[in-house]
């Protein structure tokens, strides 16, 4: 239990993920609930990003490293693909990942990189102790 994804810097990381889980999910639910017909695809993607953040938060908070790795990779792919495809003027159809997370101080772009670095660092530090993360 000495090295866990939720201790040390990981404790702060889990909280930041939790904030984004709440922000992205709530935003998507408001969008889908009030103006779903305006941009159903964008809002569904918004909801998807919220679910990804929820799973990543849960995985990091409970030291499930493989699930954390998968969800963070999905998150990174999502922010890069949506960031490239989205147009900055589509403000009404925006999601957390639009324009590389510009509306959120680019934290959505930095967060998965920090998450991957954190998992990598833990794996190096606990090469034999890691239960579900073979070295």
């Amino acid at each position, binding site marked *: 239990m000495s090295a866990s994804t939720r*201790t*040390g810097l990981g*404790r702060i990381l*889990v*909280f930041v993920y939790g*904030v984004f889980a709440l922000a992205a999910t*709530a935003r998507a639910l*408001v969008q889908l609930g*009030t103006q779903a017909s305006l941009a159903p695809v964008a809002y569904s993607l918004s909801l998807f990003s919220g679910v990804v953040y929820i799973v990543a938060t849960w995985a990091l908070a409970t030291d499930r490293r493989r699930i954390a790795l998968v969800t963070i990779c999905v998150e990174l792919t999502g922010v890069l693909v949506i960031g490239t495809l989205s147009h900055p003027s589509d403000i009404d159809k925006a999601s957390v990942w639009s324009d590389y997370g510009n509306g959120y101080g680019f934290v959505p772009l930095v967060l998965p990189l920090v998450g991957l670095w954190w998992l990598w660092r833990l794996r190096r530090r606990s090469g034999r102790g890691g239960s579900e993360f073979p070295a």
Partner: protein
Amino acid sequence: MTALQFVLGLFALVVALWLVALIVLDRQPDDYLYGALGVLEFGLFMQLVVGLVMVTGDHGGVNVAAYVGYLVGSLAVLPAAFLWSLGERTRAGTGVLLVAVIVVPVLFLRLHQLWGAR
């Protein structure tokens, strides 16, 4: 930005500096710090009441669902950070409080944007 948001935002920044000092000095938050967080949370509750009055009045087509969503969501940030920080009474736990106290003024900016986009 409303006067309440401005005052609460400044207060949040003062608490943030306080938390930075605690992290640098490697000290644990004391009752005064927790009291300040309580005052901030009370201010957020006041803001919810003021905001609800504002959106039920002449709001000129503001996105009410989003506005109220931010008001209600902002109430969850500090209690969640407090509980999560108790799990680890180190600099990292204090860092969680710091993140939460920075998130609060960011939410004010978002509320201000939403209101200005009418």
